[in-house]
């Protein structure tokens, strides 16, 4: 009776695979092997044939390539490409070696297909068993036409989600699994493993996390800077953006929409355009330095992107330019939702504007916008554009792979695209995810909107 103690879900189907096995008749059990058998023998030909056809397709696929790809997955190939002397033509010819990358990709894709087939098989068993139960009880079994009709009503989610879910599976989840599995291989230009590589277990993680290895040292310093950057970028933008929004929305400020327009205009220009312009303006021979030199204020160019501290401050300040207008847009509506009585009573009690801000505005805003802050924080940790377009991660120490303003993401990009250390890049990606997941969980758990409002979604 252990079974009954199981948490009862809202959506329990009365037709389960185990019931089908225990109580199913010959036809239902037959459909364990020949999919759709129960439906076909109960005159539901269209649905039964679809199941059967899909099963045949799956078997054909496995026979043609699936089994081979699966068998290649553990070893990832071993045949190297080599030259063979062709007597007849009098030239060296290359024999095709194994390509581990494709083997890995096809192997993983095959795993996806198999998982999909298992799900299909389960739905087949359930629907055959359902057909059996309904016909035993003498109830009506939906015809194919009626089944299609439910797709527009009770089963609308299957129809609407089919496209998006397929897209996400093929273009988001499959590549992600593929990249994650690369973290456990030696797929890297190091040791010339670009065509043929092997599983190496957790070695890459050990290398990256080891403080004494070169990559490890870089990792910890990049991680520290990424967190510093994300904290500054998120909270400075939030604070200044909110203060500006309050200033603009003040009762006595004139031409409110004009001010808002000025700030919003900078969002409207594509980010890569404005950032590339900033970058050229701040070069040692760029507009800003030239102007300052001509004005006689400085004799040497300011090291905007060549000195570590300068570069770090520069990217944070320019990110303020990029980010504050967004904050203004986001918080303006919420600021106006704060009950006016709160401010009036504070005024009567003689609270200064500063105290009002600290005691009323900030707590209220933090309560409402915690989810927004979390997404901002994760967005900043993954803020590729600002760093890559602005400083490109520079200044980079000689011989290093990571620059002083490189975030984990830009470093990941450099490692994979420029350096071709695919395995290390994948490890960095996974570690970035872990960092983000921890931060998001902790802040979300401790936030007011989670603790005080259970129904908050």
């Amino acid at each position: 009776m252990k079974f009954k103690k199981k948490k009862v879900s809202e959506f329990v189907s009365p037709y389960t695979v185990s019931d089908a096995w225990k109580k199913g008749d010959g036809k239902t059990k037959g459909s364990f092997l020949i999919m759709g058998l129960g439906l076909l023998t109960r005159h539901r030909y269209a649905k039964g044939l679809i199941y059967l056809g899909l099963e045949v397709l799956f078997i054909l696929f496995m026979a043609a390539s699936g089994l081979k790809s699966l068998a290649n997955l553990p070893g990832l190939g071993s045949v190297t490409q080599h030259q063979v002397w062709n007597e007849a033509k009098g030239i060296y010819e290359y024999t095709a070696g194994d390509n581990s990358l494709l083997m890995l990709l096809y192997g993983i894709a095959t795993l996806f297909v198999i998982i999909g087939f298992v799900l299909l098989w389960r739905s087949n068993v359930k629907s055959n068993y359902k057909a059996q139960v309904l016909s035993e009880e003498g109830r009506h079994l939906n015809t194919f036409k009626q089944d299609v009709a439910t797709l527009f009503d009770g089963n609308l989610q299957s129809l609407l989600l089919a496209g998006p879910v397929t897209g996400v599976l093929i273009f988001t989840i499959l590549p992600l699994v593929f990249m994650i599995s690369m973290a456990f291989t030696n797929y890297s230009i190091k040791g010339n493993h670009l065509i043929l590589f092997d599983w190496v277990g957790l070695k890459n993680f050990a290398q990256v996390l080891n403080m004494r290895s070169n990559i490890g040292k870089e990792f910890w310093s990049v991680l520290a800077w990424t967190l510093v950057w994300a904290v500054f970028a998120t909270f400075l933008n939030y604070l200044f953006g909110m203060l500006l929004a309050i200033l603009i929305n003040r009762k006595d400020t004139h031409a409110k929409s004009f001010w808002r327009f000025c700030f919003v205009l900078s969002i409207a220009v594509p980010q890569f355009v404005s950032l590339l312009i900033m970058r050229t303006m701040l070069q040692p021979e760029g507009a800003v330095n030239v102007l300052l030199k001509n004005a006689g204020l400085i004799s040497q160019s300011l090291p905007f992107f060549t000195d570590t501290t300068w570069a770090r401050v520069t990217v944070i300040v320019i990110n303020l330019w990029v980010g504050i207008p967004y904050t203004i847009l986001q918080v303006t509506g919420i600021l106006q939702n704060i009950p006016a009585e709160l401010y009036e009573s504070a005024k009567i009690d003689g609270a200064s504007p500063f105290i009002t801000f600290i005691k009323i505005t900030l707590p209220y805003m933090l309560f409402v916008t915690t989810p927004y802050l979390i997404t901002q924080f994760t967005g900043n940790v993954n803020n590729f554009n600002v760093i890559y377009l602005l400083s490109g991660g520079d200044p980079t120490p000689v011989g290093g792979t990571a620059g002083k303003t490189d975030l984990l993401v830009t470093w990941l990009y450099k490692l994979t695209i420029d350096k071709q250390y695919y395995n290390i890049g994948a490890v960095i990606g996974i570690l970035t995810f872990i960092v983000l997941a921890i931060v998001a969980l902790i802040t979300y758990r401790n936030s007011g909107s989670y603790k005080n409002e259970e129904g908050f979604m």
Partner: protein
Amino acid sequence: MAKKITKSYKTKKRIVNIIVHVFLAILAFIWVMPIFWVILTSFRKEPGSYIDTFFPKHYTFNNYIKLFTDTNILNFPRMFMNTLVIAIFSCIISTFFVLSVAYCMSRLRFKLRKPFMNVAMILGLFPGFMSMVAVYYILKAIGLSEGSMIRVALVLVYSAGSGVGFYIAKGFFDTIPKALDEAACIDGATKWQVFTKITIPLSKPIIVYTVLTSFLAPWLDFIFARVICRANAAYYTVSIGLWNMLTKEYIDQWYTRFAAGAVCVSIPIAILFIYMQKYYAEGMSGAVKG
């Protein structure tokens, strides 16, 4: 005495007001200046990436004319058309995807709803282009990495995964009263009819918002475009083109034309953005309210 107090209070208020306005003016100047500078540069006659005065010495319209007529090295008109086509298709697909998923999550109750929402949140925490290399190989495996298929590939890249970005639209759908749906159901409407005849017509702001954001994505992205187009200059999008104009071999020749191109791309986007600003704020506050 009382008069004096109100008078000093008034002068104090006036001073505060002046300070606030001056402060806002300075900040607005800082925010607008780079944009103003690009527009100036796009009309500058002197070539090169910098000159020693803020205002150009001579003005010309040639940069714009050359940008659209001199197509030997970097074919800007073709890039513009490429981006436009890609943007239109990916916009249609992703709007459909986002709205369907958002409606399912907001209005329908089914077994995989919660898991799907959690998975979507987890996927959002991975660096977006971490899987870029893998996406390229997948596109290559299904034969979309060469020739004119590159356009299809870019459309797929921008739209296929868009289903996970449903949160804002879901927040908006949540604010539409459920009573409307129920009334329609009692009258015998199917859920599909509720979706197309009630929810969609009531959701103009969020549809505009979704259409515009997905239309803008191909204009703004250059990371994916660069990896997928590689050296196929015929299929470059605008952003790769502009990026290339600032590489070392082109910058001296092309800098003013880069500015002209930037203005050409920015004007439509700016108009669209200012138009959708209202919807943006509405959609966001809806989502935050949950």
